[in-house]
């Protein structure tokens, strides 16, 4: 059963709100990453406002699903989503990367207790998620009802640790584990296929005994169908390769790897970001374009 129209509309509106917050945060912080947070906004929105079993009033609820952000540098989208989901006030988003803020430049679990882990150094999130799923299996068997999600970047698949975790998850048949890869094709120094080719990416995961799906990372129905299938697969972990547009929401920055690791700072860049902020209210039209039908 696909998502109802009303639900898609609600998610689209949430995603617009979150994108607006991300852009405002980056302009205010004057440092941070632009491309990844904006391209993963739809997936974060879908997870926190539809798929995840969680309770913002009781973040340590033991039966919650676990979501690990492996590529911690896209944390503006994590923080903005958590704030919009009610974990902390929206006003706190302005403190990103400032002295004493809970919103560290890369996520710090100890200071922001609703996080499942700290991250930043790449390539270690999947293994931690594997460890969580294994621990849960020891306590509750293979049908605990909890889902374990790991959000990863394509660039961090250069790290050997990522593949070590993938091998173990395949070996252990962790069917309640779903990795979602932000396949935006960029990393700091350039396009992924120039820096360190990953293709054929789907084949690599299949070879480690994962169930593989490829989706449009900006299409809520596509994401929803893939998550549903991931939950239905019983004897394998699932990976969803989500094709995304880097910096989605600021047309001048979209698809450019140069925006991987910097915020808008020059007058021209800030103007482009403000223009996007102004237009973001009309982006509902864009999201409803044929691409997102």
């Amino acid at each position: 059963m696909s998502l109802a129209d009303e639900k898609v509309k609600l998610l689209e509106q949430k995603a617009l709100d979150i994108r607006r917050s991300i852009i405002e945060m980056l302009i205010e912080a004057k440092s941070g990453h632009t491309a990844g947070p904006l391209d993963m906004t739809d997936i974060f929105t879908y997870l926190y406002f539809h798929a995840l079993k969680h309770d913002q009033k009781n973040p340590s609820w033991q039966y919650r699903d676990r979501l690990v952000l492996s590529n911690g540098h896209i944390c503006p989208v994590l923080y903005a989503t958590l704030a919009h989901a009610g974990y902390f006030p929206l006003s706190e988003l302005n403190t990103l990367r400032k002295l004493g803020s809970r919103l560290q430049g890369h996520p710090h679990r100890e200071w922001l207790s609703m996080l499942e882990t700290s991250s930043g150094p790449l390539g270690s999130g999947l293994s931690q998620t594997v460890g969580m799923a294994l621990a849960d299996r020891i306590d509750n068997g293979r049908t605990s009802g909890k889902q374990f999600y790991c959000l990863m970047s394509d660039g961090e698949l250069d790290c050997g640790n990522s593949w070590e975790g993938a091998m173990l998850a395949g070996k252990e048949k962790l069917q309640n584990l779903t990795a979602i890869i932000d396949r935006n094709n960029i990393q700091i120094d350039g396009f992924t296929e120039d820096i360190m080719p990953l293709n054929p990416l789907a084949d690599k995961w299949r070879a480690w005994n994962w169930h593989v799906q490829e989706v449009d990372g900006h299409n809520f129905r596509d994401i929803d169908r893939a998550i549903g299938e991931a939950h239905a697969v019983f004897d394998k972990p699932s990976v969803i390769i989500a094709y995304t547009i880097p910096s989605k929401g600021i047309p001048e920055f979209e698809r450019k790897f140069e925006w991987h690791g910097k915020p808008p700072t020059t007058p021209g860049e800030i103007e482009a970001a403000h223009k996007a902020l102004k237009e973001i209210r009309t982006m509902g039209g864009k999201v409803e374009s044929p691409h997102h039908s």
Partner: protein
Amino acid sequence: MLNPDQKLNPKLFDADVEQIYIRTGFGEGLLKAGEMDQRVVGLCADLVESTHMLGFKMKFPERYIEIGVAEQNLATVASGMAAMGKIPFMTSYAMFSPGRNWEQIRTTICYNNVPVKIAGAHAGISVGPDGGTHQALEDMAIMRALPRMVVISPCDSIEARKATIAAAKTPDPTYIRLAREKTPVMTTDDTPFQIGKAQIVFKSKNSSSKNSVGIIATGALLYKALKVAKKLDEEGKNVTVLNVSTIKPLDEQAIIHLAHETRALVTVEEHQIAGGMGSAVAECLAAHFPVPIEFIGVKDQFGQSGRPDELIELYEMGEKHIYQAVQKVLIRK
């Protein structure tokens, strides 16, 4: 003489003193910890027998995870399990864990502040014939530099057993350093052990202050320190030996007290001098009560293949070298 309060092995100085792998004590302790607390889980990187985790694996197969030769995965999977309330013990050789996975230990264990216990086997030059690639001589330095990490270097099998059981009861990230070879059993079941507490194991009856010296040792080399102390005692020196089995948190009170009493120290460890136990002692005393110190340890070198006893001599960590270091530091008083 041996400190009677320590209830050390009465046959300690006998030629046929019992020798057991320090790893054996770890394995016994892990089994005990597993029996006492079902949150204890074991993870190993393809060295389950060698790191003496096999007993735990056999007894608790459902609580054992075989990781394969992937030490970065070892640390990060352990971190994830700890986040779910487990007390993971992870083992490999010290050269690979914490040698290869230091950043994962830093970020996912220490920064996250989760109770993962890291046992690094085959530490020190006495690994012997395997050669320089496998002789971890920097592990204590890289572990003690990490905020929150507790660093324990047991002197023998019994102390390793106690350290392992004690580590399982704390919420702290902990590193336990284990040697490869069988080493003399110096302590007994009745010897006191507490994480963070150094123990005076030898104290002369000689009262000379001019000839007073303290030897601070960690790990299996404590045995050589004790033998040197016995000889010095017989020669009329006033020698005290302190067993520092917890490198971090360092028992500063005991070290400062020893410095006050003796005004000359020798540190003894099977580790690079840079960054090891001696460095920790020097940091403490430079700030609180500076006295001359001589350092026994590896001098900014890699090891090589050879018999453990040959290597200990070649790299100047033998009884002769400890004895000479004492003479040297006494001149510096």
